[in-house]
């Protein structure tokens, strides 16, 4: 067993590509959004608050991205009761709201996108557009 492993990680350039694709998608949908892009560990790489989006979505979008990076699956699939308990247990860092998606390349989570201010489905759609902008990336 090796003592270390190497991890592919989203670059700032990749994060900005994703961010811009999310902004373009949100504009096309006419739903202003807060958009957070993190690395695989959930640390923020890029963020946008579009005019007209909700201020508190700064928090929720970031939490969604962090949750997706940590859990490696799209947010919103945890049972409601467990979701609240996990949110409390993690001091609000984990959320079960829809709109967080992991970015996967070659089977590894390299980052995540969290979107907030629309409905759950709208947030998810915008986040998926961000994933599609990263070369070779798909949704975990």
């Amino acid at each position, binding site marked *: 067993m090796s003592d270390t492993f190497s991890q592919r990680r989203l670059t700032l350039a990749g994060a900005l590509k994703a961010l811009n694709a999310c902004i373009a998608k949100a504009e096309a949908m006419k739903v202003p959004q807060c958009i957070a892009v993190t690395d695989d560990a959930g640390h923020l790489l890029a963020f946008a608050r579009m005019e007209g989006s909700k201020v508190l979505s700064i928090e929720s979008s970031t939490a969604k991205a962090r949750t997706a990076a940590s859990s490696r699956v799209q947010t919103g699939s945890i049972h409601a009761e467990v979701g609240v308990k996990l949110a409390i247990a993690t001091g609000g860092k984990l959320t079960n709201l829809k709109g967080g998606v992991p970015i996967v390349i*070659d089977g590894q989570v390299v980052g995540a996108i969290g979107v907030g201010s629309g409905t759950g489905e709208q947030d998810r759609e915008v986040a*998926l557009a961000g994933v599609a902008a990263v070369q070779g990336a798909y949704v975990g």
Partner: protein
Amino acid sequence: MPDTGPVKPERHHSVCPHDCPSTCALAVERLDARTIGRVYGDPDNAYTAGVICAKVARYAERTHHPDRLKVPLRRSGPKGSGRFEAISWEQALDTVAEACLRAEQKHGSQAVWPYFYAGTMGLVQRDGINRLRHAKKYSGFFQTICVNLAWPGFIAGTGALRGSDPREMAESDLVVIWGTNAAATQVNVMHHATRARKERGAKIVVIDPYRNATAETADLHLMLRPGTDGALACGVMHVLFKEGFADRAYMARYTDVPDELERHLESRTPAWAAAITGLPVQEILDFARLYGRTKRSFLRLGYGFTRSRNGAVNMHAASCLAAVTGAWQHRGGGAFHNNGAIYHWNKTMIEGLDVVDPSIRLLDQSRVGAVLTGDRRDLGDGPPVTAMLIQNTNPMVVCPDQNVVRAGFSREDLFTCVHEQFLTETALMADIVLPATTFLEHDDLYQGGGHQYIQIGRKLIEPVGEARENHYVIRELARRVGASHPGFAMTAWELIDWTLKASGWPDAATLAAGKWHDCQPDFEHTHYLNGFKHPDGKFRFAPNWSRVGKQAAGMPRLPDHWEVIETATDEHPFRLVTAPARNYLNSSFTETPTSIAREARPTVMIHPEDAGALGIVEGGLARLGNRRGSVLLHARLFDGVQRGVIVSESVWPNRAFIEGKGINTLTGADSPSPNGGAAFHDIAVWVRGENAPAARAAAEQIPA
């Protein structure tokens, strides 16, 4: 000025009989009672739409070819020597009948094996041989060589062999041409697909192991490894589910186990699919997203990608895409493979279905070599085959495992009669050769597998030489061997008329007058909006494979990459695809000068880097081999394949190869799941350069 211009030749309606889904409506120039001129596609037919392939447009070259067989022949030298003497029809038919009677007396009726296929697709002239077989209880013919991987694969999901109207392709926003080189083999598909592009800005995606003429026209070409289409389909569906393109409401209503499929696909990621298919992840993603966001997406699923040991599974997996996105709901959307199920024939009189004895054994067409060399897996407890009557097919070239086929046909105790238009390599092995008419010289009835028309093709010119139609031969033999059935007393035209009336179609005179009859069912039916053809009306992501074949054991429950193909190994590092050549159709047209000139010579296309590593140069010789044998042919360096994949466009006659051994020397005759067939594009081989000294030296180190 002269008072009159040149007389324009009369044009007459006809139908292309060749082995192709298009069954084109033709307008044939008749120059006189014995001669045709140019052949055109009928512009009034909505599917043919005035477009036909070049090889049929120049059909006069084939009909009036100097090498047409004109008189019956009797073998006068050793089998295969090509030495024959002309005899009369009476002598020839008597000889064949006597041979059949002798075989029957010695071993019983099942020692005779009538053997035929789709050299003509006319229902009377192709299938009438079955009437003789049933009336005489001769061995049955299990037709496997073409559709037995493709059809069960499609029917497994939908429950029926039908799909969206193929003309709807022109109303699509995305046409996916999957595993068929339509530009070379079924030009009408390209006509409707490019209409969609011109009129609607539709995208065309081609999925094929090599950059062929169809792929050249594509917006996106997915050049995957052969036999990995199931993996691609799974990777695409993974994305469809993950990225919100799956229509869950549609699936809840119209499909069997969508939740189980979604869980199953969890591990079939694009990276997983990329590793198996050899495609870049990004291409899989681009295709999945394009397919997912386009409602009017038309899957044109071909035969080519099913000619693999996992072909049925791959066909089913590809057909699942339309059920995941619900593309079936939209005009210009859904999937199409073949329209067999829209026709409702009563073929009792043509085939003698009222005198079938179900206890008579069926022998597998694709395993003709094994049958003729006495393989007990094929013969069972029954007698050997000692007499064959062969019409419209050329097993000495087209059947798998040619070395065994050749051994079988070389048997001295086997009597063979071949009724053919040309002295094919099968005819060369015959004891009696009978000259056959082409479609222009007899009447017949046709259905289009790739469209929705039934048509009649009438006799337009007198037979060339002493050529006779298939129906004549069957009737005359029936009389001589004592077979009785009312069908033997009828003319071909009477059989056509009887069949049409008994099937609930317009009668022969009406059909001939109207040129064709459109059998297209309505939109709801063809798009399965009234339910799929299963008892619960639901598409099967988890098919009951045993419902579509007797060899279903071990087939995967859900769409997958099924690893039963001949994978590349150290011994056999290459995967060979024997794709169809543009100017040939199976082995038909390999006799016409223009087709031969355009195809040049048997060639293997190999990636330049692979060629370099083996010391093979452009135009140099390459030997391909496996445990079944080896063939020697010329190489062409071509970067339109993945490394490790080679393509040899086919089917050239064996005699066109340097050593007289054709490409199907390398093809396996094992019977794939679920219902037999021939895995023509699933062949693992080694490759050696033959004219580069360094390569030869290296090759000598490799055990054969």
